[in-house]
């Protein structure tokens, strides 16, 4: 091994620094891309390598925290048990009711001659990590391209829409939450087809709330109404629940309303999510021949 004097080290250090800075800059420039374009191979490699260490580490840390949580939750177990027993009885009655409703629904459908439309295929996933930088708020799930996950696939929980897949490696995928995603999604307040309150939902910087824009001031929107996807953004399918209106700042005939939405999904505490294996229908041919699309090429 070559021994260097302190002077030699001081001389060589700036050159090494420049070399490392340059290589990092090249990586950054290579990784910087449009939000909806294809992802870079280098990120897939980096994520796959990280997963081999992250998955065991996450399961270990969650195991330890679960152990302590289970100890603390023992205190409230008795009262919870009583509540749950009561809830089971209520649910049994509800199940009986819904069974009869399903039978009735089937009968009516057959009467109308409607065909059963299959919903999207789903894939359950677990959140194994959160963004390692304080500047971003993505989540990592334990499903990747080997499970059929692709870029921009929607992620939901039983509460509602969570976000979309922004990067996929063979074993994991990165999910951008709707509260942090800069790209907007098409939405409607109330029932799709009956409501005129169409607009675009995007994050507004306030961590827990979403903002809906472009809703004409002449359309009436009430606090507490549900907000659903329209499917017009080319990413999310129609009919997914985004959240509920919590605040409306009225506009006028020419100025759009400002609507604030509380997401239905519990984004800060969720541990399990569902990936909708949904691929949007291909864009029509005329879309590709737009002047902007030609310029990009």
């Amino acid at each position, binding site marked *: 091994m070559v021994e260097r004097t302190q002077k030699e*080290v*001081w001389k*060589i*250090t*700036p050159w*090494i*620094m420049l070399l*490392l*800075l340059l*290589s*990092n*800059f*090249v*990586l*950054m*420039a*290579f*990784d*910087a891309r449009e939000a909806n374009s294809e992802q*870079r191979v*280098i*990120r897939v490699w*980096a*994520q796959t*390598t*990280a997963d081999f*260490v*992250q998955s065991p*580490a*996450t399961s270990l*840390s*969650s195991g330890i*925290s679960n152990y302590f949580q289970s100890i603390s939750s023992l205190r409230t177990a008795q009262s919870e048990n009583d509540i749950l027993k009561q809830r089971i009885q209520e649910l049994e009655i509800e199940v009986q009711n819904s069974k009869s409703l399903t039978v009735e629904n089937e009968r009516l459908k057959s009467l109308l001659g409607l065909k059963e439309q299959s919903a999207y295929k789903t894939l359950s996933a677990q*959140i*194994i*990590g*959160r*963004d*390692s*930088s*304080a*500047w*971003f*708020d*993505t989540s*990592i799930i334990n499903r990747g391209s080997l499970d059929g996950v692709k870029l921009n696939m929607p992620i939901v929980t039983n509460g509602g829409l969570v976000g979309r897949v*922004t990067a996929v490696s063979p074993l994991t995928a*990165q999910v*951008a939450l709707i509260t*942090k995603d*800069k790209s907007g999604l098409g939405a409607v307040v109330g029932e799709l087809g009956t409501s005129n309150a169409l607009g675009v939902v995007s*994050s507004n*910087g306030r961590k827990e709330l979403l903002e809906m824009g472009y809703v004409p001031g002449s359309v009436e929107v009430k606090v507490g109404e549900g907000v659903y996807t329209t499917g017009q953004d080319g990413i999310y399918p129609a009919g997914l629940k985004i959240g509920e209106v919590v605040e409306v700042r009225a506009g006028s005939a020419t100025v759009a309303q400002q609507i604030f939405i509380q997401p239905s999904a519990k984004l*800060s505490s969720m541990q399990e999510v569902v990936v909708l294996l949904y691929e949007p229908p291909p864009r029509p041919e005329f879309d590709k021949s737009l002047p902007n699309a030609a310029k990009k090429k």
Partner: protein
Amino acid sequence: MEHVKITVALIIAVLLQWTLRNVAEPFAYIDFPLIIVVYAALQGSSIRALFYGTFAGIAVDALSGGLLGANGFSKTLIAFVVSELVRRVYVDNLLLRIPVLAGACLLDDLVYYGMHRLLGQEPTGPFVTTIAYTLIGTTIAGTIIFLLFNVIFTENVKRAKREVFTPRRQTRRRNPIRLSDRR
């Protein structure tokens, strides 16, 4: 031997950065790899600190929504700046190291944010809040980690010194007054 310990500490720091946010959100505001990179630079091993900065940064970026290499860039720069500071100014005291760490954290965040803006990828976190929280979190955690390292590493240094330089036998000095009395 010390650099092996720092390398192990760096690997642990990256693992903590990857996992702790999933346990509790406030851990996002502690930059563990930066603390280790600054510590390595403060020890005077400048070249090693540069490589630590690059590799730890890229490892953190791999699981982040940000640009791959942004953290590597900022941490390499921090390692160089701190190494140059150590070359010129005596910062062998924990009290002096705290403002160095705080300054490094601030610069790291500014460079990270600036590189994203430069390449048209605006971070989603609020600028002032994220910088302030990261500064507080990293400085507090860094001070504790530096204290811990002082205990671990300094003990070994003391022991090694004791082994190399055996304590000198104390000889009794003659009292010059007594000598004069005898006469």
